[in-house]
């Protein structure tokens, strides 16, 4: 990409993250995930899509339309919601990541 994109790419790649949601005790079963943006590193504040929280809403997805409010508090979701945020390497910190079993991925010939 052109030189004009240098600063934007640095910010984008440092701010980008992935957020996954699961139920307590079932970390791999039916987990939901989306992308996100790290707004602040200390303390860590992340903005991500709300769609992955729909299965955890205590009153179901209708809560998103029934209320005219612009926001819902965090306790609108059930207590068994577990969230994890993952991001890329930072400059001086080699990642200490244990091998995980990944879902099958193939690259079919086009």
């Amino acid at each position: 990409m052109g030189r004009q994109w240098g600063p934007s790419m640095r910010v984008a790649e440092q701010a980008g993250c992935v957020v996954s949601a699961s139920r307590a005790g079932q970390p791999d079963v039916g987990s939901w995930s989306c992308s996100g943006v790290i707004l602040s590193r200390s303390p860590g504040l992340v903005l991500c899509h709300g769609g992955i929280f729909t299965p955890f809403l205590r009153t179901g997805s209708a809560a998103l339309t029934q209320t005219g409010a612009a926001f819902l508090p965090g306790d609108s979701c059930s207590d068994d919601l577990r969230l994890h945020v993952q991001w890329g390497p930072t400059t001086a910190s080699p990642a200490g990541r244990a091998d995980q079993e990944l879902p099958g991925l193939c690259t079919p010939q086009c």
Partner: protein
Amino acid sequence: ASLGLEPGAPSRARARPLQPPRPARLLLLLSCPGFRSHFARLFGAEAADQWHFVSSAPDDAVSEEEEEDQLRALGWFALLRVQRGAAAEERRGPAVTVAPLGVVTKGAPLLACGSPFGAFCPDIFLNTLSRGVLSNAAGPLLLTDARCLPGTEGGGVFAARPAGALVALVAAPLCWKAREWVGLTLLCAAAPLLQVARWALSSLHPGSASLSVLLPPEVGAPRGLPLRDLGPPWAAAAVLVECGTVWGSGVAVAPRLVVTCRHVAPREAARVLVHSATPKNVAIWGRVVFATQETSPYDIAVVSLEEDLNGVPTPVPAEHFHEGEPVSVVGFGVFGQACGPSVTSGILSAVVHVDDTPVMLQTTCAVHGGSSGGPLFSTRSGDLLGIVASNTRDNNTGATYPHLNFSIPITVLQPALKQYSQTGDLCGLRELDLATEPVRVVWRLQRPLPEAPRSKL
């Protein structure tokens, strides 16, 4: 949620080392009221059954309940607090700043950063970049032609100017209208979303109000300067042409002269209404002074207006075409009058010649129904390259390909338009009905005719 990729040998690739996943806590679910109201206006009510935003093809099996859930959550985002880690690590990384609403204009370049398929194989997919432009905007509801995939919901979309400023978050990476993939990604502007977050944090958790101070600031123009950049002038050059129940796009080539497609304004002497969205919404009556015959490969009509289109820029016609050059299409496809013209970007992918004369242009811009008649511009020079005539449909499968489209080179039209403009003489335009058979063959997407065998006698 789950990804149905074909099973294969599990990948053990480690393209880039990642930080281990860190636990986090949900602080807030938030939405932008402006986004919701514009979404309801553009995609709700009568249009609702035409639009689909689920992260799967329209033919895939998605339950109604699932689709309803996705639709309800489409404009909602979440603010999380990540559990503390090593302090040194947390300090790293450039600070995020936010572009105020309206600072980035239509046609401005954007960079989307998201992780296709979400948490699936982040080693490979984390923070994939995609480039495009701001295609359209209705308040905080934005559209980009940067190509995004399922799982990039929530990903950041950044500006080149102000450099690296967060413009928006991906709300829906894929849109279908009337079962056709539109090729645009739906975004929610970041600035109003963070305003809601600030307000919510201070009202919900008075103790954690200090968190709101840590939300990224907006970066704008220096005090005293207008925030809104007008953007490239050609982005305002398209007009909407309404002829009876048919509508499409057009471009003003002179203050009272609009070029569009024959299939938008097919009958000579027909009255048409021409709408301009910029600099202000105006509607001016006009009359079709010329439309090519059905047999002509050039799908062109010319409209003479009763009044000047004040403030609408008149583009400079190009004289040459360069394959591979960046181009932009401006048109009222997809939304019609509801949202002003959309800008889509790409490159000039092919220039088809007959006898060394360009007779057809192809681009990789996304072109949708309603864009016909709209202008194709060189993004660098702003010169008018051609008039969009169609995108591509496979009649065997019914599939439409918005990123393969055909335009009539302006060099084919310019001499005749100049003649009509200066003298009122339609002779030059009438010659468009006399295009040669090789040109007709090109526009019928047929193979060139073999040369007639020559006698050896």
